[in-house]
């Protein structure tokens, strides 16, 4: 029986998340104390060596990202708590169960890159999390554990694209959340044109234990190319709809049948979509793939945020993908043509297929359109939007063909 390994959620349900003393008694803020006695460059090296890759979806080595930050008078640390990817509730879970570990992680990053100001960008759907975080920050400040590192919480207002790091920065600056052209990358020119490190909640939450126990310890857990654990959130037709934290060499099958308890109502498995609504659909034949970033990419899927959306054999794949196309049509920010028009047309064609009015020619068109979007869209939203269409055409094509005229 596969077992959970808890790094990020090590304190979950063991301490009172709203009491900083509980966190400190459980060994909290020792890592920050330790890095304060270290040369910032050595901290970056340690994090780089741990090979903790971004848990927000892109999978970039956090230490390597920090190493690109140039000298500057002001720098910022931004924690991405926008969590808009449907099926995902891990960052909320992490913060609700242990907010101090995220603050400590941010302060560790602050020391490493030489920043005194952190921001947490929390989605507007989580006002209660904003409250909890503000309380946690007040307590940490009152204890003096954060030293001269300050953290402010900003609230989003219901725009999925604001999870994209440059759109997020625009939003903190008080603008429409439209992504910027890259380069320059935020690490060089981000918030108010200052060097800014943006990392995901889960990435920050990994840092205290990496510092406490060392890079080699972390690097030895899970899959060698994407070490550590991943917090996954189970939803859909699975018995246990719960968050779990597992080593990254756990297979999809173990996630669904051992941690998830299998399919609800004694039904059979049809498909699983991992990584959120932009993730690929995965059929039964690929369930023995480990969940780590590279293994998932190798089967044309994604680890993404770690959302695990399970569908039983009664589900209509074309109908679900039509709904997903609506999501992207709604959330496209409209800045670039391939995505603004592309998501609109994808939804239009998917609706036509779904109501049984489309021909094989429409499928050819949507495939062509998908390729254009993947290549030409400005940000990850437009590039990833056709993923569900393409992967279901690959693995569940018969469900489309059944609906063609």
């Amino acid at each position, binding site marked *: 029986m596969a077992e959970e390994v808890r790094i990020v959620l090590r304190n979950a349900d063991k301490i009172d998340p709203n009491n900083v003393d509980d966190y400190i008694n459980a060994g909290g803020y020792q890592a920050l104390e330790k890095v304060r006695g270290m040369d910032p460059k050595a901290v970056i090296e340690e994090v780089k060596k741990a090979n903790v890759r971004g848990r927000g979806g892109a999978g970039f080595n956090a230490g390597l990202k920090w190493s690109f930050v140039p000298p500057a008078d002001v720098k910022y640390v931004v924690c991405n708590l926008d969590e808009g990817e*449907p099926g995902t*509730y891990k960052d909320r879970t992490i913060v609700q169960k242990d907010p101090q570990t995220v603050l400590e992680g941010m302060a560790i990053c602050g020391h490493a890159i030489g920043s005194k100001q952190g921001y947490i960008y929390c989605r507007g759907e989580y006002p209660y999390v904003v409250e909890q975080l503000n309380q946690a920050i007040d307590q940490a400040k009152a204890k003096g554990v954060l030293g001269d590192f300050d953290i402010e919480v900003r609230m989003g*207002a*219901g725009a999925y694209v604001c999870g994209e790091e440059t759109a997020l920065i625009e*939003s903190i600056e*008080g603008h429409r959340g439209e992504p910027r052209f890259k380069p320059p990358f935020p690490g060089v020119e981000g918030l108010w044109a200052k060097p800014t490190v943006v990392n995901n909640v889960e990435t920050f939450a990994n840092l205290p234990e990496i510092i406490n126990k060392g890079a080699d310890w972390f690097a030895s857990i899970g899959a060698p190319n994407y070490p550590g654990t991943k917090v996954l959130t189970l939803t859909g037709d699975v018995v246990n709809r*719960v968050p779990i934290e597992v080593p990254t060499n756990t297979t999809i099958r173990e996630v669904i049948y051992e941690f998830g308890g299998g399919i609800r109502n004694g039904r059979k498995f049809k498909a699983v979509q991992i990584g959120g609504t932009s993730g690929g659909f995965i059929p039964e034949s690929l369930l023995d793939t480990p969940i780590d970033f590279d293994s998932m990419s190798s089967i044309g899927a994604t680890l993404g945020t770690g959302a695990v*959306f399970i569908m039983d054999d009664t589900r209509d794949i074309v109908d679900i993908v039509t709904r997903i196309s609506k999501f992207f049509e709604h959330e496209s920010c409209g800045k670039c043509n391939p995505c603004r028009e592309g998501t609109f047309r994808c939804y239009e064609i998917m609706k036509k297929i779904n109501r049984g009015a489309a021909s094989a020619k429409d499928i050819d068109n949507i495939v062509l359109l998908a390729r254009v979007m993947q290549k030409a869209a400005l940000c990850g939203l437009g590039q990833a939007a056709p993923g569900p269409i393409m992967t279901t055409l690959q693995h569940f094509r018969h469900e489309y063909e059944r609906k063609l005229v």
Partner: protein
Amino acid sequence: MANYRDIIASYQDKPGGIIEAYHALQEEFNYIPREAIDEVARVFGVSEAQAYGVATFYSYLSVEPRGKYIIRMCESAPCHVAGADEVIKAFENHLGIKVGETTADGKFTLELTQCIGQCQGIPVITINRVPYEGISPDQVPMILEKCK
């Protein structure tokens, strides 16, 4: 009721505080009144078009008056398979309005939303930002009854 000018003034020193100001305005008025947008533009030194552009970019912010109870149904894929369409139909039938509308007595507004991060409890609604999990159509009359 607080003056919108005072609300806005309390955010003027916050860099990029427009969105925070809009949240506070909406908390007070349930939407962002036109005069307030003009005032935000003046205070934050941006054009009225820009201030309006920010207010209308975010789906959480509304520039139209809405009801006392804003009911939002998640329509993302996990909630969709769990029966979101039936729940929204039940709300429409009981309230006699369509999605996007407000009841004549100004009590209820019905909206769709994308995932609100409570996917352990699909299908999910929020009433004035508070999430409720595992909603079925037959619970709708009771839910509405509780909104006094």
